[in-house]
């Protein structure tokens, strides 16, 4: 076990998989950086510092620094994948899904089904989420929108170990995976298993355990929920905190088992509230776990607005540990 941060875990996994399989390629904007400049190749190595060193090691045919053309990045990843390669495509910001949605939504999500079982091993890495005051077009948590598309697997690690395990599974799998990396989690450190480490999709992680309430969440909100649970534990209120890890496929069993025990569901979601992960899980539990419920389902989400810029506004926009605590108390106080 090595201790590293999420950024290092992702970077070392990409290096390892490209070393292991000469069919793996990576493409995206500024992933080499400095092309065509006085600084020369690798002057940047990715704006998140994740892809440095790949170009020198694997060369321009496998480490492809592209012009700013998101549709072409995803489309080219798809075409390479249909041609027998394993493509890692980087979208610098998940918000740019808006530019290339056709290639995600109408193309790679459909190929296996529509083409009679064609393999399309594409891992799209997307940096997402609020917390760095990057404002409305560089802060969104668009995983809910992509989770709604049949044919895409949707993954969002919250620890360096999970990042390695889930990314390895994504690259080695034969289907398109949307791999969401939260920009505020890149620096988080943790122990990461050495050597081959694969995590299967559709298996949630139990972050805290407790019988009084079930907090279901993912991504950046996992840390917020764990803090809320720790605060509540001081008062003797014990909560399950469930990190979904993947929202498609989704571990329904772990959610339903937890609610069966606690009778109280609090869903915490960084995406806007309508047609969201929160409403989806609330619907799931209302449908399949209704008899166990002892209180109305609480949904902790941002308001239905774009992500605001100013520090005070973004803080007010994002769900907080205090807000999650309040939602748990409200559920516990019902009747």
């Amino acid at each position, binding site marked *: 076990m090595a201790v590293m941060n999420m950024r290092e875990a992702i970077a070392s996994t990409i290096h390892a998989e490209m070393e292991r399989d000469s069919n793996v390629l990576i493409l995206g904007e500024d992933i080499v950086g400095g092309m065509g400049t006085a600084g020369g190749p690798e002057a940047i190595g990715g704006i998140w510092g994740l892809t440095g060193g790949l170009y020198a090691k694997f060369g321009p045919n496998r480490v*492809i620094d592209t012009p700013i053309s998101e549709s072409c990045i995803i489309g080219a990843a798809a075409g*390479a994948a*249909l041609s027998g390669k394993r493509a890692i495509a980087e979208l610098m910001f998940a918000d740019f899904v808006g530019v290339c949605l056709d290639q995600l939504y109408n193309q790679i999500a459909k190929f296996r089904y529509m*083409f009679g079982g*064609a393999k399309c091993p594409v891992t799209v890495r997307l940096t997402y989420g609020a917390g760095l005051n990057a404002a409305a077009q560089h802060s969104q948590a668009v995983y809910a929108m992509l989770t709604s598309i049949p044919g895409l697997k949707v993954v969002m690690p919250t620890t360096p170990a999970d990042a390695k395990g889930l990314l390895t599974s994504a690259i080695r799998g034969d289907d398109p995976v949307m791999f969401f990396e939260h920009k505020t989690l890149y620096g988080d450190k943790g122990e990461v298993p050495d050597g081959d480490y694969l995590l299967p999709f559709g298996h949630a992680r139990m972050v805290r355990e407790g019988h009084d309430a079930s907090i279901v969440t993912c991504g950046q909100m996992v840390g917020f929920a764990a803090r809320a649970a720790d605060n509540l534990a001081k008062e003797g209120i014990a909560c399950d905190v469930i990190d979904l890890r993947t929202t*498609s496929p989704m571990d329904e069993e772990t959610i339903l088992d937890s609610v069966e025990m606690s009778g109280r569901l609090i869903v915490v979601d960084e995406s806007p509230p309508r047609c969201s992960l929160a409403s989806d899980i609330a619907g799931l539990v209302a449908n399949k776990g209704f008899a166990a419920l002892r209180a109305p389902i609480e949904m902790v989400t941002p308001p239905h607005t774009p992500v605001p810029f100013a520090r005070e506004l973004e803080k007010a926009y994002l769900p907080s540990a205090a807000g999650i605590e309040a939602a748990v108390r409200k559920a516990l106080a019902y009747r």
Partner: protein
Amino acid sequence: MPLARHELIRAYQRMKTIREFEERLHVEIANGQIAGFTHLYAGQEAVAVGVCENLSVEDRIVSTHRGHGHCIAKGCDVVGMMKEIFGRRDGLCHGKGGSMHIADTTIGMLGANGIVGAGAPIALGAALAAKMDDKGHVAVTFTGDGACNQGTTFEAMNMAVVLKAPLLFAFENNHYSEHTGDHYSVGAKDMASRAEGFGMLARKVDGCDFLASYDIVNDVLKHCRAGNGPAAIEFNTERFFGHFEGDPQRYRGPDEIGRLRSTRDCLKIFRDKVTKSGLLDGATLDQIDADVLALIERAVEEAQKAPPPTAADVLTNVYATY
């Protein structure tokens, strides 16, 4: 290098197969045998075959919503295609794709595509895969005078030049983007000059002349296979049917189709050229005609007899069910 006799025979056989496939679909669709939206390729056969006769199975193509011709030219199984269009369980895509989504990645046919302009980025990826393999293989994107105006096509042209991708942009100008004339929709002198503006080799050819089309593709692909980056060819071609089957085609001029069929039919032009020059005789071509009609008849009979999918098949080839 002039084409050998067996190559000419194969090219004619493929073009004739496309033509009869489409003519028969036109009839079966009118009879109510086929569901959904179908876009026929008849009239453009010399383009698909002129390109694909220059390709090996390791070269890859990406097609359009008007894709039957590209599929047949690349070597897709004709009976499997007919079954797919009839929506049968053992169709080429198990009845899940239909006319607009026929693919066979095992032979380098990376799919027809219902989204106009979506193909060029995908073909670019196939070209980048070929570049990784470094064996001189290429990719081709077929793009119409409609799709040539999509931003994705522009992006792909630029990125192909920047990355020196071995990609051929086969621009098929059939003069109609759906129901709109190319003089209205293409805001440039032509597609070839536009491609040239992106920094690639670009040529123009009469896409109703198979021999000329074949030769220019052969020439241009040498450039691509040698690592010189992408190239473009604009084929001046004709669409004999409407945008979709059922299109009333009120945008056509008086007897336009009759004139095109008599003066711009690539099969007639091919027959005239090869018989007059003595490359092939009429009897050989007549025999191919008869064989192709028999093949199409068999394909339709088998498609009609083939079992439809069951409700349970809705859930095959999915990643997760809820």
